[in-house]
């Protein structure tokens, strides 16, 4: 015999009227938001990896029977890194293959530039940028580096063909000339471009984006299960009718699963397709070195299907498990016999985790990855302690409550602390992330080198000679500068312990770029550099984490607000009987409504306040270990964010007020 479940489901779905359609739309919308948000963050993670691999050829890979010299250097223009790859074919050796993005191996004097650099060369006077490269032969122009050699369309990259005897190719120019060279300069004799080391400017991208995926995963799970609950709460209304019509609990659960899966899959697929449609727009969003090439942000069929299936499964499981509690109770009312107690062990583990983190960060000397692990631990600790705090908060509030609305809200908090925690967790943890990161958007300790240009020289005599030369060149370029010869052991200078000169420039960024360009030929062959060069190592990670945190914060707000709204609506539907009967007995709706708002606002204020403070403290530890100072405007930004988030949450809860009015308005609620 054919199962009647499928046609019956279809019939009921169609017959469920306007409110049914609305709740389906809400659930599908939540699924769409969840799938979209997850796919975007996963895309950033996958894309960041693909992109970073595209930069690997620039760091030379030493070869035993090398055929060419490759030198990597980094210079900054307008504060942006410009990667310069110098190549020189060794005489009497086999030909070297062309580097990625170029048709042939560059000959001496040839310069190839990325499109973004070409644009900048066109825009800026030669004295600020073009002068740093060999002049193209008369009537010749720069070559173009193709997509294969670039990680982002916005990247500034140059490939310069030189003679092997060029000072820029020398051992001293590239390796260890400066304390700050790490990952920004390198030199080796190579046979090709098989390097595997990702550039300094991309290698932290993926880990930071992954952090975003992890931070957003829980809010999306909460959103999906809220969507599932909403469907089930509405389905419960028809439960009695279905039973009278002879449906067995199994069939009712089957129908619910089918309906939830259909709604969830439709929504998740819509969100996933929206992600695909948004790919061109997403490619424009700068992350680290800039925007993206089309295709880099495509997550692949596995991730695409995986996210759609995961969101659908979450919604289905949540709908079925919600309804099962009702189906199995004889009166068709979800009743919890015992409040779910939260145990003290949660607090103990939380404190243990905090103590561990505090100890680990105290010593300094931690790598970026350790921080990610610690951050995740921090996050997990909050999931552990959140329900416990909500439970305690409920009991304290219940003891102090004077008004019925407060008493109701307080009792509800300790009745289902996990549920209450889930509702506010998105915003609370976003608040934590915000507290942590907004304060992390720091100015690294390097501001003392502002407006300085450093030139490394081989020895003290060279330094004096270079100072004179620099004076002439800067005068010619119309740059006001104070030039000092720095002794070798001055580790506090921009030279970081190398021998050379430092020029203090006045007149701002354009003058600084002019000075860097003018001094290109001075010194040992190591390009002149600025504070940007010195701080690049720290900033490459911190800036990326700050980027991700801003995105995570914005997305968490959206997700958390959506799930708070859905949960509030589902709660109303779950309790429509008792609310309806209370209203019949003359209980003012505004008391019930106030209780609803308070049961969210109370934990939100306490927990969000607590986590933001902890986040700020954590950030302080984090910054401390990186030797950086706190950012005050970040703290202000944070306060505004949390306020806006709380207001949005409040609005989302108030959004179900008409629903409350409506489901309690019908006296037919009372049984005959």
């Amino acid at each position: 015999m054919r199962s009647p479940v499928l046609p019956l489901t279809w019939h009921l779905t169609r017959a469920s009227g306007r409110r049914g359609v609305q709740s389906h739309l809400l659930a599908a919308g939540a699924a769409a938001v969840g799938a979209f948000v997850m796919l975007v963050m996963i895309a950033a993670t996958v894309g960041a990896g693909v992109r970073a691999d595209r930069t690997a050829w620039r760091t030379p890979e030493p070869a035993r029977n090398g055929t060419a010299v490759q030198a990597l250097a980094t210079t900054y223009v307008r504060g942006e890194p410009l990667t310069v790859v110098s190549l020189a074919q060794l005489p009497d050796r086999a030909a070297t293959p062309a580097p990625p993005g170029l048709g042939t191996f560059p000959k001496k004097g040839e310069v190839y530039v990325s499109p973004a650099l070409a644009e900048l060369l066109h825009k800026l006077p030669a004295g600020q940028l073009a002068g740093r490269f060999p002049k193209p032969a008369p009537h010749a122009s720069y070559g173009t580096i193709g997509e294969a050699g670039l990680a982002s369309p916005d990247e500034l990259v140059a490939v310069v063909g030189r003679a092997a005897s060029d000072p820029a190719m020398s051992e001293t120019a590239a390796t260890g000339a400066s304390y700050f060279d790490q990952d920004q300069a390198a030199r080796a004799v190579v046979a090709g471009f098989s390097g595997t080391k990702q550039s300094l400017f991309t290698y932290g991208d993926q880990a930071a984006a992954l952090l975003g995926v992890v931070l957003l995963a829980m809010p999306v799970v909460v959103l999906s299960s809220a969507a599932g609950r909403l469907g089930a709460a509405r389905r419960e209304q028809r439960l009695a009718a279905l039973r009278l019509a002879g449906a067995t609990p199994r069939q009712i659960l089957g129908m619910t699963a089918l309906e939830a899966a259909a709604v969830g899959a439709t929504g998740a697929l819509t969100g996933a397709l929206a992600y695909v449609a948004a790919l061109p727009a997403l490619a424009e969003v700068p992350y680290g070195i800039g925007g993206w090439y089309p295709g880099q942000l495509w997550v692949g069929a596995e991730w695409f299907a995986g996210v759609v299936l995961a969101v659908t499964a979450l919604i289905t499981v949540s709908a079925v498990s919600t309804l099962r509690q009702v189906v199995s109770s004889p009166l068709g009312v979800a009743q919890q016999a015992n409040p779910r107690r939260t145990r003290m062990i949660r607090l103990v583990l939380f404190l243990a985790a905090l103590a561990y983190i505090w100890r680990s960060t105290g010593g300094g000397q931690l790598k970026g990855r350790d921080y990610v692990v610690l951050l995740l631990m921090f996050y997990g600790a909050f999931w552990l302690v959140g329900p416990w705090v909500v439970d305690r908060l409920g009991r304290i509030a219940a003891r102090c409550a004077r008004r019925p609305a407060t008493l109701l809200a307080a009792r509800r908090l300790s009745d289902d602390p996990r549920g209450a925690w889930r509702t506010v967790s998105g915003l609370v943890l976003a608040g934590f992330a915000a507290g942590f990161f907004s304060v992390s958007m720091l100015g690294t300790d390097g501001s003392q080198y502002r407006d300085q240009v450093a030139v490394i020289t081989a020895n003290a005599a060279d330094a004096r000679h270079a100072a004179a030369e620099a004076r002439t060149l800067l005068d010619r370029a119309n740059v006001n500068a104070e030039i000092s010869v720095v002794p070798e052991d001055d580790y506090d200078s921009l030279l970081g312990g190398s021998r050379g000169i430092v020029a203090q420039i006045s007149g701002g960024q354009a003058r600084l770029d002019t000075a860097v360009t003018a001094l290109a030929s001075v010194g040992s062959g190591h390009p002149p550099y600025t504070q940007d060069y010195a701080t690049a190592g720290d900033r490459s990670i911190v800036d990326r984490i700050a980027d991700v945190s801003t995105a995570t914060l914005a997305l968490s707000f959206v997700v958390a607000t959506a799930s708070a709204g859905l949960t509030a609506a589902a709660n109303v539907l779950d309790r429509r009987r008792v609310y309806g009967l209370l209203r019949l007995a003359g209980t003012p709706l505004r008391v019930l409504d106030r209780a609803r708002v308070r049961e969210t606002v109370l934990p939100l204020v306490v927990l969000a306040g607590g986590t933001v403070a902890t986040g700020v403290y954590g950030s302080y530890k984090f910054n401390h270990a990186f030797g950086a100072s706190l950012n005050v405007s970040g703290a202000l930004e944070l306060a505004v964010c949390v306020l806006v988030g709380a207001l949005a949450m409040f609005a989302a809860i108030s959004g179900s007020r008409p629903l409350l009015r409506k489901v309690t308005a019908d006296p037919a609620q009372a049984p005959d």
Partner: protein
Amino acid sequence: MTNPVLAGLGLVKKYGSTVALDGVDVSVGARDSLAIMGPSGSGKSTLLHSLAGIVRPDSGTVLLRGEAIDKLSEERLSALRRKRFGFVFQFGQLLPELPAEENVALPLMLEGVPRRQAVERARRWFAPLDLDGLEHRRPGQLSGGQAQRVAIARALAVEPDVVFADEPTGALDQTTSTEVVRLLTSVTREQGAALVMVTHDADVAAHCDRVLQVRDGRISNYTQFTVA
């Protein structure tokens, strides 16, 4: 019955073409109990809702101690239900997260009685309703009969003029039903309130002073068990 507490006169209520009430006259006095019986869809609930100020009749009037209540504003009606009426429904009327005593104290707190006093007054109802020791239980931890007795305590806590009960034993077994309805009628009478109860169970109805049979919106039969 010279001075009825509550009286409905010529009550008519139509839903579209359905005539739910077709000119019903009914009254109850203090300590008086009235059972309304009849087949499903005959208009029992509509009658109870009209008397309780939940539904406004199309014509006819409802008098509470001689004052018409059917013209009051929604706000005033709601306050009236809260202060002067008590309600017992079939099931699911207790807030699941509140302990029994707070469920009973809730209507008092809504009236502005301070919490401690409200809970104290609520507790006084536990002994007469055989609920001793259950003050701190939550509805999920109570049996069906116990939950209904807590609901009765809540209905009586505000010391109402009239208690309305719509199928108060509808979800209970026979033995429990008898016990609940016995307590409902006796405690309501002791308290000095009138009782209006809808039921489909003749044994339950027999605990009341009078029984009304309703059919198609009209009173079809009227039985007086005891002399008031």
